[in-house]
């Protein structure tokens, strides 16, 4: 590494080392370079002090969402956490996500999320769909598809984090995914019952932490969750509105319910 880029500063990192059952914070001193991020510091530790230090990462450019961790208590991507945001004498505390079981050091087992994803009815266009789509109709969906699956929103959500409702609550990431499907101009499936009775969108009390931590600046709460909640209201909590809609015949089109594709259970 070029000498000239050094800042002469040393940072102290307190990194969690251990498993789900046993572990402790270990301190490391790392020289700080211009533009350095926490992931660089972790790599420095790995290369110079401890090749065993477990960390998940891929692109180092905030595009893959692998290096999720909690830096000084805030869920963030390590590749986006600049070292110059910390004071000189400040200990930088790096620990794994709380909501998913630690495998080792900074690596957690996020496989639950993949299990949830399997149960969401996939994109279901009509066989005879007209694929002329205008930009204004997909901009909303494109925002949701920016998601890099870093699972920081799942991690910060208190329903999953503190209340452990992994039995019944899909979490923000999958509400974003469902929003991307439900609002797709050509999708014909109806996932509203799923949202209410399986994903339990009602558990969300819109306290917006998911939006706060999203590294892709997706307005998870305002643009995905709340519009979905309103669609669930249309279907299940607004008898008057439904009555009037039925009376008028037109209004909101009733989507044909498409049967979810069968999934081979994992062994």
């Amino acid at each position: 590494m070029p000498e000239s880029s050094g800042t002469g500063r040393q940072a102290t990192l307190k990194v969690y080392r251990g498993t789900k059952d046993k572990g402790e914070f270990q301190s490391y001193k790392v020289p700080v370079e211009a533009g350095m991020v926490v992931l660089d510091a972790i790599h420095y530790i790995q290369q110079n002090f401890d090749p065993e230090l477990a960390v998940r990462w891929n692109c180092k450019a905030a595009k893959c969402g692998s290096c999720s961790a909690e830096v000084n208590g805030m869920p963030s991507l390590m590749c986006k956490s600049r070292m110059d945001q910390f004071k000189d004498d400040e200990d930088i505390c790096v620990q794994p996500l709380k909501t998913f079981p630690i495998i080792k050091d900074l690596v957690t087992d996020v496989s639950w999320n993949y299990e949830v994803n399997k149960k969401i009815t996939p994109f279901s266009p009509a066989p005879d769909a007209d694929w002329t789509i205008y930009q204004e109709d997909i901009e909303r969906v494109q925002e949701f598809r920016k998601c890099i699956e870093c699972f920081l929103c799942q991690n910060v959500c208190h329903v999953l984090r503190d209340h452990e409702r992994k039995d019944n609550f899909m979490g923000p990431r999958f509400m974003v995914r469902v929003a991307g499907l439900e609002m797709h101009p050509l999708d014909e499936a109806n996932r509203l019952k799923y949202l209410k009775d399986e994903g339990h969108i009602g558990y969300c009390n819109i306290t917006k932490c998911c939006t706060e931590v999203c590294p892709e600046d997706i307005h998870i709460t305002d643009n995905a969750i709340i519009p979905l909640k309103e669609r669930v209201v249309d279907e299940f909590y607004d008898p008057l509105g439904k009555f009037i809609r039925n009376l008028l015949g037109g209004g909101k089109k009733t989507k044909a319910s498409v049967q979810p594709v069968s999934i081979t259970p994992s062994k």
Partner: protein
Amino acid sequence: MTQSQLTDLPENKLPTSNDVPAYEGTTERKDNWWVEPALIAFVFTAFGIYSMFRAFENNLYEVGPYLSPFYSPNLKQYVPWFPLSPAFLILWIPLSFRATCYYYRKAYYRSYFLHPPACTVGMFKGKGYTGEQSFPFVLQNLHRYAFYFAVPVLLILWVDAFNTVYYGGAFHMSVLTVVMFANCILLSGYTFGCHACRHLVGGKEDCFSCPKNEQKLKPAFQAWQLVTKFNERHQQWAWTSLISVALTDLYIRYTCVDPSLAFQIF
């Protein structure tokens, strides 16, 4: 509650959050995360006390053409038998609109219910949590009905404001009139940036321009875009309109005591 089909994982295979030893306290955050919820709780409480005081006061709400937003529309003449202050006939509407508002829900779930007070601050744990899925919070789903009621009340406030411009057969203008109009503008920005409104005017549609819709939904698209503009700043509209309502009422209260305070311009 029945086990949902969220995943195929058996109960004992569900992951659990990490407890020890990295997470001993409620949070590892080092910043002053408690400031924001505390401040919000303080302002809400202050507003609540003030509005209750004003509602019970049953006095000093109308002078000349000026009518306090807490008492508008004044229904006293229609229900003379009503024993309490006429403010109660009307206050439940804005109150329920704000209580079920998606922004205020966030604010008070954090500040009063501490669910959670701030991100990654876990005050309460436990598996029984069902959020807005069951009673009483399931009632939050009626937000759109509160919106339906709030719109006419807002229109009446606009009428009130215009009434202060033209009365006694001539045009007038005062500082208080300007304040009342400003209040109406802020309240409109808040009301028409409502998430339920955003959904109803167009957000519920999946495709505005699809060939099969033959341009029918163009107006819905434009309305949805407009409401979205307001909605992006819903929090700011919520706060400024809350404060402007209280200040407008306070101003009218003092004007009732001393009408010269309206600062007539012409």
